[in-house]
């Protein structure tokens, strides 16, 4: 019984989405009646006052949720949650890092998609800086990486960026790839 209770607690913790009695019984390979009593046990334990996490019945199942009384304090975390970098942003940042100085049009040519939104996010996060304007008709802005970029990636300078040759050496399949050197003239 104690182990079953621990298992149910762990299932609910890991699942994220609500788990029904049926589902829990199936996962824990136990009888529904037993699961039901384990659940009410856990609810009693968690829903006592002064707990940060409650076990709540929701959408036909059970789920751990934060105590609603703590909402004001918890919002501070939400704001600070580290924004995750999307694959699109990573790709764009990579192009800028290796190809700088580079214009938006050049980035979009390489990526094959509009990159304005992603570039705006990267600028807002201080990872890019504007290096000037390109001396061609339309005088498009030239982008490069910022000093903060070096800090985030722990690089001394742009020459510290690994070259493609170094990665190609790890994997013979990559050996035929394009030569890639940080472009820092």
């Amino acid at each position, binding site marked *: 019984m104690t182990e079953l209770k621990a298992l149910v607690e762990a299932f609910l913790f890991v*699942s*994220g989405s609500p788990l029904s009695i049926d589902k829990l019984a199936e996962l824990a390979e136990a009888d529904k009646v037993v699961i039901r009593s384990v659940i009410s046990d856990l609810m009693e334990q968690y829903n006592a006052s002064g707990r940060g996490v409650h076990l709540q019945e929701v959408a036909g199942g059970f789920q751990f949720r934060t105590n609603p009384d703590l909402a004001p304090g918890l919002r501070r975390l939400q704001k600070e949650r580290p924004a995750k970098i999307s694959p699109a942003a990573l790709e764009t940042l990579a192009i800028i890092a290796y190809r700088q100085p580079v214009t938006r049009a050049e980035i979009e040519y390489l990526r094959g998609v509009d990159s304005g939104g992603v570039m705006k996010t990267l600028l807002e*996060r201080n990872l890019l800086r504007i290096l000037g304007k390109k001396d061609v008709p339309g005088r498009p802005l030239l982008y490069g990486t910022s000093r903060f970029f070096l800090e985030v990636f722990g690089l001394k300078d742009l020459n510290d960026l690994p070259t*493609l040759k170094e*990665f190609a050496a790890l994997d013979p399949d*990559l050996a035929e790839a394009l030569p890639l050197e940080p472009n820092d003239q």
Partner: protein
Amino acid sequence: MSVDIKLEKFSGPLDLLLHLIKSQEMDIYDIRIGEITEQYLAIIDRMKQLDLDVAGEFLLMAAQLIHIKSRMLLPVSEEVSDEEGEDPRAELIKRLLEYQRYKQAGSMFDQMPQLDRDIFLPHDSNSEVFAGTMTHNVDMTISVYQLANAFHMLMNSVKTEVFHEVVRESLSVADYIEKISRRVTEHTRVAFREFFADHCNRAELVVTFLAMLELIRMQAIRIEQVASFSDIWLSRTASTEHIQRLHIDEEVLDYD
């Protein structure tokens, strides 16, 4: 000794040597080099007979073993011991001990409870692409490797695209002339940019442009721009009927 040894079970020649030493119950500090060399070579030989790809590293080790064995056979003369008084096996022993240590550390890692194998986190927090590198100290930490890799993958995919363009050189200027005239017929005036908006691939850009030039030459369309760097517009000059009657022949166009 057991003949049933598969090289791929060993992570390298040092691993194989350790196995042989252990199975012969030898002291790692006092390897009977002749015996070990013989067994090692027999295994390598068998692998060759089976026509398996014997990795260069295994062969290199075989050469080293033979070299050590031959040095062991030399009488220890005074001059030699001055220069290399060390046991010829010393370097190998040191490497074996060091290797054994990391091999053990590796299997110890294997026994430690591992995230996602023995220990679990709520699903939504460990399923995201870079969740593993999330930290609260720095805004964002992705590794340089991920950055370089992203660029590398992209360059590779761009390259493949170029390659494909060459292969399927079936884009016909005539088709594009037709496409453009159809749009100009329907809308009278179309922004130059619009024709390129959804073509990200270079071949299509080129063919579209060639088709436009051709239409201008045939005086079917006109190109205009109000001010420098403002939008360029394509408009129809010929009548709809005229455009529809344009006889477009690939051979006449002479684009190959």
